[in-house]
């Protein structure tokens, strides 16, 4: 049995978040690894990353993360990643990590993801350069996600994202902003390569559970959605 804890959108800012820090420091009591689904900081500054690293440093299990749009806002991504690395956090972007637990393996393919919308109501690779750049960013991310998952030779495979691959876990958000919350291209990549689970955040007013068109479970673990410091999953 492999036990995973997961949360997104912890949004560490200027103030200490003692409840989150206490819960994560004790996560080893119930999980073998912690997965973080982006928006780890409020503005993406190196100062916020340092505060986040102080929260994550005492976590007694491996921590694998992707960044979210908030973590990009200050355009200090390299500093944020370096800072998290000092706390032992593996940050994925179009890359993979393998966790070893009791002789079994879990592969994690991670990416921020991006928007574009869902079948029947999505953007297209057409028109102004800005619109094409938007769509092509999502396409490139989806392709790296597909390749990452396909390359994992592990007992279990998880896709770790910030943006959503399906509309189901966005229910509760205004439908008008769905194209800014996720893309079907991410789900298509997951369904092509296969996975046991997709984790994401980003949609604070969304819903917790969904499924890709190919049948892969999708869980929105944004902290405002789950109302807890993390959710737990067991892989057998």
């Amino acid at each position: 049995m492999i036990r995973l804890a997961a949360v997104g959108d912890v949004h560490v800012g200027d103030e200490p978040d003692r409840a989150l820090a206490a819960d994560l420091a004790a996560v080893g009591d119930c999980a073998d690894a912690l997965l973080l689904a982006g928006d780890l900081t409020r503005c993406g500054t190196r100062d916020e990353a340092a505060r986040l690293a102080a929260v994550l440093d005492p976590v007694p299990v491996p921590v694998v993360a992707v960044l979210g749009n908030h973590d990009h806002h200050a355009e200090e991504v390299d500093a944020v990643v370096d800072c998290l690395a000092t706390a032992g956090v593996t940050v994925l972007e179009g890359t993979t990590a393998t966790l070893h637990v009791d002789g079994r393996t879990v592969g994690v393919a991670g990416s921020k993801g991006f928007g574009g919308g869902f079948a029947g109501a999505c953007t297209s690779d057409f028109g102004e350069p800005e619109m094409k750049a938007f769509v092509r960013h999502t396409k490139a991310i989806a392709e790296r996600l597909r390749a990452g998952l396909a390359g994992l030779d592990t007992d279990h495979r998880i896709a770790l994202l910030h943006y959503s691959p399906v509309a189901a876990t966005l229910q509760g958000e205004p439908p008008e902003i769905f194209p800014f919350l996720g893309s079907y291209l991410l789900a298509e990549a997951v369904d092509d390569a296969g996975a046991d689970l997709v984790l994401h955040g980003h949609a604070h007013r969304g819903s917790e559970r969904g499924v890709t068109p190919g049948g892969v479970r999708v869980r929105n673990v944004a902290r405002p959605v789950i109302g807890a410091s993390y959710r737990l999953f067991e892989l057998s």
Partner: protein
Amino acid sequence: MSDHERHHEPVDVPEYVVAHVHEALTTDPRVMDQGIEVVAAGDTVVLLGRVFSRAQADAAGDVARDHAPGYRVRNDLEVLDHPAPPGPAERLT
């Protein structure tokens, strides 16, 4: 230029007030939260949703007041400072 254009006064449109408050809540470093719902109800702007600290909730109220002149602000934000237990693990078979 017509008389109408020359003497045009800005119109107080609640939809634009909501949009400006929402934009400010997203970009002001004290708040920076896209998940706050902003509703105009008569002469009142209401803030709804979950934020991560009392300081962030209070700052959201301040930002809303700054960007909704002439409106009252009702701050109904919920603060996530007492997280619930994680609940039972979901078994993925």
